[in-house]
């Protein structure tokens, strides 16, 4: 798993590549928490390279969503692979996250 972070015009974009599972979810957590500390209003998560996620990864997503919602910020996910979207669907996560086809639409989304 690899994450890269960059500032974009109205927030911070994180790109995640590879697998988020029980063996490495804490690395992902660390990377995202670092971004949370910057108190940005919008976090964009590029999921195009995310190939696998288990419940330990989903837990991190949910925690970030809770934290962002609590501070009035937005956590936007975009370009999710169908297999990952399916996991989000069956766990009920699709309805609690804003998932967009690409960065453009994520920026326009509320």
């Amino acid at each position, binding site marked *: 798993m690899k994450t890269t972070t960059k500032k974009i015009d109205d927030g911070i974009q994180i790109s995640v590549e590879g697998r988020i599972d029980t063996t490495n979810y804490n690395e992902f957590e660390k990377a995202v928490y670092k971004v949370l500390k910057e108190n940005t209003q919008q976090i964009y998560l590029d999921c195009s390279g995310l190939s*696998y996620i288990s419940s330990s990864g*989903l837990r991190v997503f949910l925690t970030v969503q*809770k934290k962002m*919602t609590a501070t009035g910020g937005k956590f936007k996910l975009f370009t999710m692979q169908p297999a990952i979207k399916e996991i989000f669907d069956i766990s*009920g996560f699709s309805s609690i996250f804003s998932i967009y086809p690409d960065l453009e639409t994520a920026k326009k989304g509320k």
Partner: protein
Amino acid sequence: METSEKMHKKLVIKNKISEMERVIAFLEQMEKKWNLPAALIPSINLVLEEALTNVIFYAYEEDTENEIEVDFELKDKQLILVITDSGKPFDPTKKSEPDINLSAEDRPIGGLGIFLIKQVMDEVSYQRNGKFNQLTMLKNWQ
């Protein structure tokens, strides 16, 4: 009697999280050997991870080394996974299901693993056999 060796494979792992790497490698081998549908592999990977991490984290006393057995069985277009451990009795199928209609604020962190297994697999059952927990999970495909 012809025992179909090729239709039954066993993997034995230790109750350590680093063993998940071996499980994934084994699953990839099974995919090739048994010609399993590629689309099935990520969900089987997920199910194995959820079920095994549960056992690894909760079944045994801390700092004790134990073995966990994972049996793969292929019958026509049905894959049967059986996980056997000698940890404390625990029936994961009895765990209450998360309410997936809750908002992010109300949604508790955790409790998803077993639920995902039940969603992905067609049948999940638990048995306590003597000092063993046995979780049997079936997946059918077309």
